[in-house]
């Protein structure tokens, strides 16, 4: 299946619940497709090399770095950005908690932090281990677990304390 012709590919992406068609060069990243081609600019471009996590989005519920993803690879996948977390205008619990705990200063890393936290809590709930999980079975979301699991998102303002408090609060509220 050859999907690019004359340097362009006609593709369709499922973004925040809406099917969107676009014609792009195959070299366009998912990040640039969202921001520059689909008018969904909430996702941010930080390092553009997979080191900072500002571009984190959810694909089929899993967090990825959209800067290292080619848009053409993500047809038929369910892509959710920061805009898609509050479709009806009611903030997602993580968004609300970030406001309550000052989980940001300049706000640039925030969409990535929030999408990452949403994906992280789902990973934790599913029982996925981290590098600090003892004996391979996660127990409680300790501060060590949270820091390890969120290490892919950098905040140069240093709002980490508020970010951690916000995520701890949401985790505490969702515990059975």
């Amino acid at each position, binding site marked *: *299946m*050859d*999907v*690019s012709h004359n*340097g362009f*590919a006609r593709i369709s992406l499922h973004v925040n619940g809406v099917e969107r068609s676009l014609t792009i*060069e*195959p*070299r366009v*990243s998912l990040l640039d497709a969202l921001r520059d081609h689909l008018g969904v600019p909430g996702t941010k471009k930080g390092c*553009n*090399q*997979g080191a900072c*996590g500002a571009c*984190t989005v959810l694909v089929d519920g*899993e*967090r*990825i*770095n959209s800067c*290292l*993803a*080619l848009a*053409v*690879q993500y047809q038929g996948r369910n892509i959710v950005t920061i805009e898609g977390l509050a479709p009806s205008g009611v903030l997602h619990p993580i968004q609300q908690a970030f406001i309550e705990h000052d989980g940001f200063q300049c706000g640039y890393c925030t969409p990535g932090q929030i999408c*990452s936290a949403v*994906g*992280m809590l789902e*990973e934790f709930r*599913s*029982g*996925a*281990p*981290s*590098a*600090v*999980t*003892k004996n*391979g079975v996660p127990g409680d979301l300790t501060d060590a677990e949270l*820091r*390890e*699991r*969120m*290490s*892919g*998102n950098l905040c140069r303002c240093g709002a980490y304390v508020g970010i951690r408090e916000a995520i701890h609060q949401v985790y505490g509220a969702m515990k059975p």
Partner: protein
Amino acid sequence: MNNFTYSSAIDTNSALKLFSESPDANATRFLAGGTNLIDLMREGIEQPQSLVDITRLPLAEVQQLPDGGLRIGAMVRNSHLAAHPLVRQKYPLLSQAILMGASAQLRNMATTGGNLMQRTRCYYFYDGAAACNKRVPGSGCDALEGFNRIHAILGASSKCIATHPSDMCVALAALDASVNISGPSGERRVPFTDFHRLPGDTPEIDTNLQRGELITSIDLPASSSGLPSTYRKVRDRASYAFALVSVAAALRVEGGMIREVRLALGGVSHKPWRASVAEQFLQGKKPTPDNFSRAAAAELAPAVPRKHNAFKVELAKRTIALALSALAGDAPSSNAGGAR
């Protein structure tokens, strides 16, 4: 990033066919998770004319083999592999090593096959203005006399002192894995420790995979299952950093004697370094801290440190001894509280 022709394969045969039909095999790459290749393309280090997307290949399963081993499909993503119940139960060393590499986002994208194919993070390899025999054969190596703190101490050459960046591969080397490969002339199987190469005079060639060949799966033998094991990684920050030195170790002691020992090192060589010298030294000996230290010293005896990385020799020795002591019950059993 240069533009390219993109195609997407549905199975191994169509992937090999799309590759072989591309105008220039040397300018064609298989694309999996993209976490390294896309970055290299953006930096202009890789400039493929054609990409063959293999992420839709039906190779995303972890299967039990009849002999009790495990077959890991090349498209199984790193996060799924680390969390897989059979891997956690039978090969916890592999799960641990994967989880100590990269970030959660990257592990969600990166694949098993792609992890083997990732390239060095040597700064001079990445810097288009620097001399690098790996990037431009014959251009020289600015790392030799440059800032070589992260570089190799074992198996390097005068042409290249780059290290292999993977954690997962260090565990696979220790676990006696093998690599299943499909290519235009059929299928073949390579012991994991023969997959990656030392730099020698051809540092531009990282692996023994031929152009147009595709990794389809990794096999773990039953004989490596259930071994008491640990992965120790020393890095500049507690998470999300490449190894300065890492150690994958497995140890089985019976009747007060070492019956089986597996040892592999990361961050010290152009390939995941199976520490055979130390293993042979320890075979049949008592699991004492002194023996562990002597084994580590024997393994590191041929080390050739550069100006800024001499610390790695001592660090590797101590990390080996600590990992083995932990398995023998003489030291803390995890990284907790120490460097990760």
